[in-house]
């Protein structure tokens, strides 16, 4: 029968708009305005999931964000599968498809349910105990072979989606004067008093509708009108104000430093239907000058055996389903409570035709206004009762209660429980505010504020309707005044909204006997006995109990369980509850999708991509690219039929035979200008600069203050007060930061200006014996002759008519030039060189060939052959240190005892005994075959076309004193014999530099 638990009238659903949906493949119907949870309630579906550890059948515990049990997967077409959503927060839509989780093959017949029977094996601390043994057939055998495979298969909630998410997610920054979190009576009153003052107000609430507890209020009046009427007129009033932003379906999930809050908005189905480009969710990063927290309170369950049976539900949630959705949670209910508010639930249900089989109150007396009304209505009320269990397996069938007249079993199809209300102090706590214990009421309340925030309403312990409204009005006015607006707080009068009192913490005496499963944390399957076991096994602080039992560590963060767990631990330890401590509340309040955090940062937009001006040419000519930082660099240019190895060998050979073109645009470039430019370079590089002639270049080594190589590059002097500094591709930003640091803070007296020019100069390297022949026809105003333009010089002139800084430098060991040119001309100049090079058999080479050729020459790459612990001496660069210099950054450190120790690792070359074998970069080097004591490692290894054999660079302890020595490189269990050699493999005298 369809929706047999639905009332014919009442609630905030639209019976004129029926909706069809499926849950686990079965079709049901509901109405617009339903949540998935309320529609399941209306259809009499009790069983909605299996629990995490024991695979116990579970039903809805609540109607809100605190729901621990009803986690479902939502299937919305290809790529649109979302696991672990709370059914209580999913708006029902036409054709919605939801699946239960944690069960196989079906929800009713779940194989994992065997865990429930085996539960003695899975006691608290199970994971720790199995991680530590038992060592049945050797160390950790049981863990590796038995438990880990089982745990891995069974672990986790839901299933991760397997396809890319086709939806988009937006991210916004927002500012406001007053942010109000929560739209119950306190939040609405706060928003209203702040908004009327003119302050910019944001009101957010994680529910589908604003109103909080007012949405299920049927009897109370506010200022003489029905609560629901007051709600709609207040919302209309707020919506009409231009200074108010109303954000339903928006969770304030995190409170960060300086009143910075994270809000996650679920975009409504209506908006997404109207606009196909609308995002699925929006992440709002809000900087609020003042914050009002009106987050309400969460009802606590009672802890008793089998209190997790489907149909056992928080009492007030039954009222929410009834009032908001016109759905009855059962036809015959039993109520077990320690709080007056459950009597209000009983009265509402009774009035809606639900049989209330009895109200069993744990307290010895119940004399409040609501109990009095329940008595007047003729409901059965038993005080001093004890709830001893729930019967039934897939759905509750009866409640077992103990009263003065003995144990009774009372049949029912819903067992409603209330242990009282826990103020939601999560955001206050996240803002670094402390909480204080209210002994009389057994609740934690927000203490002094650390940031610009204040709490109002139930989250501050002000549970009554009138109390909440007036507390909210005051908080809103105070917040607005703090931002400079003249705000006044309205005074509200309420009628027919009697206060409710009561509350109970922990497990009732005897209710959690050690055989029974009396659940405290439903989502992580933690029972009262687990917490007592943790205490017996020596856990004293709640932080330890929490980690040992995992109580409060599920995705619901113990919203319904923390206080009961604390009370049980306190009782077991026999100390006052506050002494056990309270665990820290973490962001997010409820889980936020990865999509919202990722926003647009996916695919092409995940990271910026930097392309050189010559990129497209390289792509058109078959380049494979490698990522170097954010840069795409041409790696090698394979011709048809060539693999990488063949392409690189050809590129190297032809460059050394004739000429090669290389895109070196990614090099970092810094223009150092000013009367003290040379002085600054003297301080920041090991080399001397004062006497470098204009038009000449020098290879510079930069150390950090610790004396380790930080960067290197060629530096040219353009004028007495102007230098063109180059850095490594990856080091450009770091080097400029380092230069600025010393210039601003250590040597502020120097008159120097630093400018990054990396993007202003494209660089084409032309290398090889015919380099001069290739470029000569394009050069104007520069004498290229060997005498006029020697190695390591720079000339300014024109190249193809465009202004150039032409450098004669080499990173291959061949005659070489680097043409610095404005990027807008680079591609056409490259193409002109390429065309002219045809006659010479010129080649374009990529970074791999560049690496091979520089390694043949023993030129290091900072970051590959050095690792942040290499001194110039270690790298064989003592020659680059200006001996006469009194000081430079890092100089003093080079004299520290460890820096001159004889066994430091030094850069050497390695030859493998087997000339064909190319070593692995990073491989460890040992002195004896079979040794595991590394004395160094391989930093670079290539097949060298120039030598016709493999070569490697390595750092080895006392390497330079080991020339000719035989060592071994570990490769798995094998040891490859190598011999130590000079790191310069090719043209040791450097004669080829002159072409």
């Amino acid at each position, binding site marked *: 029968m369809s929706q047999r638990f639905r009332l014919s009238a009442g609630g905030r659903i639209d019976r004129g708009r029926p909706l069809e949906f499926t849950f686990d493949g079965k079709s049901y119907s509901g109405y617009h305005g339903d949540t998935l949870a309320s529609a399941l309630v209306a259809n009499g579906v009790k069983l909605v999931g299996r629990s995490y550890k024991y695979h116990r059948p579970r039903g809805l515990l609540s109607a809100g964000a605190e729901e621990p049990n009803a986690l479902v997967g939502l299937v919305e077409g290809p790529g649109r599968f979302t696991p672990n959503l709370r059914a209580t927060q999913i708006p029902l839509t036409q054709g919605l498809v939801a699946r239960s989780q944690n069960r196989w093959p079906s929800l009713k017949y779940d194989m994992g349910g065997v865990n429930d029977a085996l539960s003695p094996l899975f006691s608290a601390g199970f994971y720790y105990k199995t991680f530590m043994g038992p060592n049945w057939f050797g160390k950790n055998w049981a863990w590796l072979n038995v438990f880990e495979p089982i745990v891995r298969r069974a672990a986790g909630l839901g299933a991760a989606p397997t396809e890319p998410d086709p939806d988009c997610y937006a991210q916004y920054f927002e500012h406001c004067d007053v942010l109000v979190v929560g739209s119950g009576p306190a939040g609405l009153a706060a928003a209203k008093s702040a908004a009327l003052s003119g302050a910019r107000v944001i009101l957010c609430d994680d529910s589908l509708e604003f109103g909080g507890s007012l949405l299920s209020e049927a009897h109370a009046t506010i200022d003489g009108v029905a609560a629901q009427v007051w709600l709609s007129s207040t919302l209309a009033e707020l919506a009409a104000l231009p200074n108010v932003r109303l954000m339903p379906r928006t969770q304030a999930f995190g409170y960060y*430093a300086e009143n910075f809050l994270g809000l996650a908005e679920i975009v409504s189905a209506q908006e997404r239907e109207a606009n196909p480009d609308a995002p699925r969710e929006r992440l709002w*990063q809000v*900087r609020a000058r003042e914050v009002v927290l009106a987050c309400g309170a969460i009802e606590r369950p009672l802890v008793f055996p089998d209190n997790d049976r489907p149909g056992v539900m928080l009492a007030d949630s039954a009222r929410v389903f009834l009032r908001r959705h016109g759905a009855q949670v059962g036809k015959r209910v039993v109520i077990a409570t320690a709080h007056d508010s459950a009597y209000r639930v009983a009265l509402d249900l009774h009035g809606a035709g639900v049989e209330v089989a009895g109200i069993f109150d744990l307290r010895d007396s119940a004399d409040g206004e609501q109990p009095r009304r329940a008595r007047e209505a003729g409901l059965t009320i038993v005080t001093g009762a004890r709830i001893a269990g729930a019967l039934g397996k897939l759905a509750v069938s009866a409640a077992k209660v103990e009263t003065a007249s003995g144990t009774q079993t009372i049949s029912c199809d819903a067992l409603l429980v209330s242990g009282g209300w826990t103020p939601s102090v999560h955001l206050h706590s996240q803002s670094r505010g402390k909480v204080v214990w209210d002994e009389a009421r057994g609740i934690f309340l927000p203490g002094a504020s650390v940031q610009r925030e204040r709490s109002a309403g139930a989250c501050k312990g002000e549970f009554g309707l009138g109390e909440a409204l007036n507390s909210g009005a005051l908080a809103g006015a105070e917040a607005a005044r703090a931002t400079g607006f003249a705000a006044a707080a309205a005074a509200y009068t309420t009628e027919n909204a009697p206060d409710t009192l009561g509350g109970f913490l922990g497990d009732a005496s005897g209710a959690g006997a050690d055989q029974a499963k009396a659940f405290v944390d439903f989502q992580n399957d933690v029972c009262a006995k687990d917490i007592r076991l943790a205490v017996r096994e020596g856990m004293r602080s709640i932080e330890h109990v929490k980690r040992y039992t995992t109580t409060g560590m599920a995705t619901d963060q113990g919203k319904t369980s923390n206080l009961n767990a604390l009370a049980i631990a306190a009782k077991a330890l026999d100390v006052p509850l506050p002494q056990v401590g309270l665990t820290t509340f973490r962001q997010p309040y409820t889980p936020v999708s990865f999509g919202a955090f990722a926003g647009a940062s996916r695919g092409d937009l995940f990271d910026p991509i930097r392309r050189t001006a010559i990129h497209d040419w390289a792509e058109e000519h078959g380049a494979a690219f490698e990522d170097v930082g954010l840069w795409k660099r041409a790696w090698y240019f394979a011709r048809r039929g060539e693999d990488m190895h063949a392409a690189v060998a050809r590129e190297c050979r032809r460059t050394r035979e004739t000429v090669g073109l290389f895109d070196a645009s990614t090099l970092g470039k810094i223009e150092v200008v000013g009367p003290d430019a040379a002085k600054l370079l003297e301080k920041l590089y090991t080399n001397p600069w004062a006497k470098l002639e204009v038009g000449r270049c020098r290879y510079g080594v930069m150390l950090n203050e610790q004396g380790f190589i930080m960067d290197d590059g060629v530096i040219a002097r353009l004028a007495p007060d102007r230098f063109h500094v180059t850095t490594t591709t990856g080091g450009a930003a770091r080097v400029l*930061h380092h230069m600025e*640091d010393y210039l*601003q803070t250590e040597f502020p007296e120097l008159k120097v200006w630093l400018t990054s020019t990396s993007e202003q100069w494209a660089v084409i390297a032309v290398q090889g014996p015919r380099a001069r022949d290739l470029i000569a026809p394009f050069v104007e105003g520069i004498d290229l002759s060997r005498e006029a333009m020697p190695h390591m010089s720079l000339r300014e002139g024109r190249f193809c008519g465009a202004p150039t800084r032409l450098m004669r430098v080499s990173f291959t060991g061949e005659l070489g030039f680097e043409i610095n040119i404005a990027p807008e001309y680079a591609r056409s100049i490259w193409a002109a060189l390429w065309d002219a090079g045809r006659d010479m058999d010129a080649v374009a080479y990529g970074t791999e060939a560049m690496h091979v050729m520089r390694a043949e020459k023993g030129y290091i790459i900072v970051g590959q052959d050095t690792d942040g612990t290499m001194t110039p001496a270690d790298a064989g660069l003592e020659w680059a240190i200006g001996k006469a210099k009194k*000081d430079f950054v890092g100089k003093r450190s080079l004299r*520290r005892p460890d820096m001159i120790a004889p066994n430091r690792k030094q850069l050497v070359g390695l030859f493998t005994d087997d000339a064909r074998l190319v070593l692995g970069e990073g491989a460890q080097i040992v002195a004896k075959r079979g040794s595991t004591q590394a004395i160094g490692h391989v930093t670079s290894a290539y097949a060298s076309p120039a030598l016709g054999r493999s070569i490697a660079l390595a750092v080895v302890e006392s390497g330079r004193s080991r020339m000719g020595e035989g060592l071994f490189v570990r490769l798995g269990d094998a040891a490859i014999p190598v011999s130590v050699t000079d790191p310069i493999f090719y043209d040791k005298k450097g004669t080829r530099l002159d072409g």
Partner: protein
Amino acid sequence: MLLIPCPYCETSRPEIEFRHAGEAHVARPLDPETAGDKTWSEYLYFRANPKGVIAERWRHVSGCGRFFNCLRDTISDKILTTYRAGEPRPDPQAPKETGR
């Protein structure tokens, strides 16, 4: 995300515009060559790491690019004041008014 008042821009900006640059007032010895090994290694490696108020350097790297100093309470993560490089460390009890 912290809001950091830049003493050069005289405005508070979000933390992502800045880059932390270690403890402040660790002066480089004026003549490193005469510094003993102990003095030098303390300059290089020894830092205060206090529980409470720390003076530290920040750079407004996505703004004016200037390095400046800041007093921050490491317990509350509150920035007490910021001041220009070269200025003496202020008294944290009397934080000066900084621009907003």
